[in-house]
């Protein structure tokens, strides 16, 4: 059954790729007139909501309005978009009936300089993980990090700087940009770091890389740069909780308050239990969320009280400073850590071995999936062997559904 599902996924991805190759521009595949249906999608719900933030009183300058309008505003809220599959639908028509199976809801939180778009339609127009997980029977929730995209941001700082209340060099946190050089180097697309823009003209992609490099200018002289549209400058440093203040870094103490993880814990509670997925900048957030009071997981009492039911860390997110009480909590939550190909150092790299050994010693279930070094059956019965060519943006790679199947297989094997 599993292998049949895998073939189906691969065939779907291949068909989508073929269709895209035949089109004059890849972006066109995403438009109404060119939509390639993946088969009917049966939903019992589609929508959005926001997790409560913090009320603040704005000064006249902070409101930025003409004429000035001081008053109440909410900051630190978190935007959540969801799709809920209809129960019992066989979305792919393969007769397996897998889609009627009940999973625990899953929450995806994107990485730095990005938004929930990371999990949606790929830049070359293929199905994203959001729709795929729905089709596999998961209630699927995408959260825009606090301070980013539809979550809004705390604009007071900028108005205070503009209005002369704060100094620009000290009062205004840096704004992190996801430039092409950041992406090519940080996402492990090039065989060497990119130091000259445009990177598609100056840097050689890894042979066999699975990222849709045509969406970052490769092979088309920069005529298609769809991926970069996903970049949203991060305003996290405007928020409280960063350490040191004004940076993109979370607090060193994994149980300390941090905006997005605290809201993820609230969300897990409201959902009555969820698998939390973080990526890159947010890869530590599921663990941080599990250690927030709202999760019900820390300090550990019972499995039913703990609403973080599984942790998936994409591209690391480990700690080497966990306390015994924190280790106790994390040893009760299944944890899967994923890392792609082209790593400059062997994986798992520090601090993951420390966390893995501590949680394993405490009787926990923590697996590190270095994708190009996988051993068949090591994650769950029937899990695949090595897969090559995946990069940092694994959810957008041309085998993204194959990778999703690994996460789903892992969750299923843990009763999630």
């Amino acid at each position: 059954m599993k292998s049949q599902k895998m073939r189906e996924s691969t065939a779907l991805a291949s068909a989508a790729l073929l269709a895209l190759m035949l089109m004059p521009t890849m972006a066109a595949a995403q438009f109404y007139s060119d939509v390639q249906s993946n088969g009917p999608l049966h939903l019992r719900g589609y929508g959005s909501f926001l997790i409560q933030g913090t009320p603040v009183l704005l000064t006249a300058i902070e409101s930025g309005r003409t004429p000035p309008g001081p008053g109440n505003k909410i900051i630190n809220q978190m935007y959540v978009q969801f799709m809920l599959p209809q129960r019992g639908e066989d979305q792919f028509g393969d007769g397996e009936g897998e889609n009627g199976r009940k999973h625990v809801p899953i929450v995806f939180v994107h990485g730095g300089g990005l938004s929930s778009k990371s999990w949606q339609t790929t830049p070359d127009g293929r199905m994203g993980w959001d729709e795929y997980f729905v089709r596999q029977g998961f209630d699927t929730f995408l959260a825009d990090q606090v301070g980013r995209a539809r979550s809004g941001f705390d604009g007071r700082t900028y108005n205070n700087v503009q209005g002369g209340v704060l100094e620009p060099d000290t009062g205004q946190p840096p704004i992190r940009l996801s430039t092409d050089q950041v992406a090519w180097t940080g996402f492990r697309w090039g065989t060497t770091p990119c130091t000259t823009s445009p990177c598609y003209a100056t840097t050689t992609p890894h042979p066999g890389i699975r990222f849709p490099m045509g969406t970052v200018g490769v092979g088309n002289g920069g005529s298609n740069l769809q991926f970069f549209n996903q970049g949203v400058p991060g305003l996290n440093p405007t928020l409280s909780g960063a350490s040191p203040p004004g940076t993109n870094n979370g607090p060193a103490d994994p149980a300390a308050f941090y905006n997005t993880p605290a809201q993820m814990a609230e969300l897990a509670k409201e959902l009555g239990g969820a698998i939390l997925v973080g990526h890159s900048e947010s890869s530590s957030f599921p663990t941080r969320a599990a250690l927030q009071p709202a999760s019900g997981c820390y300090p550990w009492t019972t499995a039913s009280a703990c609403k973080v039911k599984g942790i998936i860390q994409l591209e690391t997110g480990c700690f080497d400073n966990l306390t015994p009480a924190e280790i106790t909590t994390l040893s009760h939550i299944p944890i899967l850590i994923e890392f792609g190909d082209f790593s400059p150092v062997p994986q798992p790299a520090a601090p993951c071995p420390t966390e893995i050994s501590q949680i394993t010693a405490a009787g926990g279930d923590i697996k590190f999936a270095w994708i190009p070094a996988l051993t068949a059956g090591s994650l769950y019965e029937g899990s695949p062997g090595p897969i090559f060519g995946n990069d940092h943006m694994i959810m957008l790679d041309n085998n993204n559904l194959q990778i999703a199947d690994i996460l789903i297989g892992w969750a299923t094997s843990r009763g999630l």
Partner: protein
Amino acid sequence: MNRHKIVSSVRAIGFAAFSLGMAASASAPADEEQNPLVLKAQGNFYTAGTIELRSPNTTNAALPGDGTAPGHIAVNQMYVQFQIPQALKYKYPIVFMHGGGHTANIFLSTPDGRDGWFTSFTRRGFAVYAVDGANRGRGGWDPTARIQASVGLAPPSSMEGVNIYTEEAAWTGFRWGPTFGTFYSNTQFPKANVEDYIRQIQPAYRNLPSPVEPQLQNAHIQAGLEPLIDKIGPCILLGWSTGGGNVLAAATSSPARIANVKGLIGIEGFPGALGNNGDPALVAKIPVLSVTGDHTSPAGAQAYVNSLVALGGDATEIFLPNIGIFGNGHTMAAELNNEQIADVLQNWINQHVKGARTEE
């Protein structure tokens, strides 16, 4: 008849009613299954925007500890999400354009957790598109001026400010009540969900003082709508508030677009601000519906509609109290009777947008 079942399912997920418990919803009562949303496709993409080089002198690359590098970034792009129903009953998709201080979210779910117009019109058989314009939500923006101020290349006064809607400004500006903290007795706003609404209001990433920045932002939004119209072909544009001006301007920006736009709907959005509203002589070539809620005067919208009719256009102003619908504010898309108003919009489309229905 089953809509309320879907509604209750979704509402249970919304924070507004979280205390009712997600567990009940997740256990999937059987009758939830009776009115599923069946999609042929859904997804999202970006339009417009430009990829621009930000050099070390204009980025914050040199700031310690930030880890950024110079290079190309996308600015001013528009985020677009779509749903296409399996049972398509209309030939022309509807494009939903939000207003200031908002994103596409205003059309996705109401503050009390019910279907917004985006999904409602999908259920009615339309393909639907909703956008996040440049400078908000998942749209792109250009932080250069702010970064230049940070690194001392420009005075802070040159930075764009941030226009933040306060609860007080929203309350009276959106006509939930006559004064902050009081509701109109007939308000259709979900009174228990004010905070749920306030959370979705967000500042544009940047606002220069009027009139410079509004024009700049509207130009970016128009630039995002134009290729969308070109790509999806014949369509109906709906603009709310300042979004009304955006759709008027985009629809009339070329002969091909005038031909493609089969209907223009303004939710308290017409005639739009001067410089962001298209040439009335061109607008008059397209069927136009303007809708105005309660507790305000429809005189401006009516005068605009009259001017379009005088130009030979098929233009209609509906002042909701005149058809017996009372209590709606500026935020009617998110209010308790949003389905009733959607009925009004659909009826207008049926009567005024020729060839809209697939069976015609």
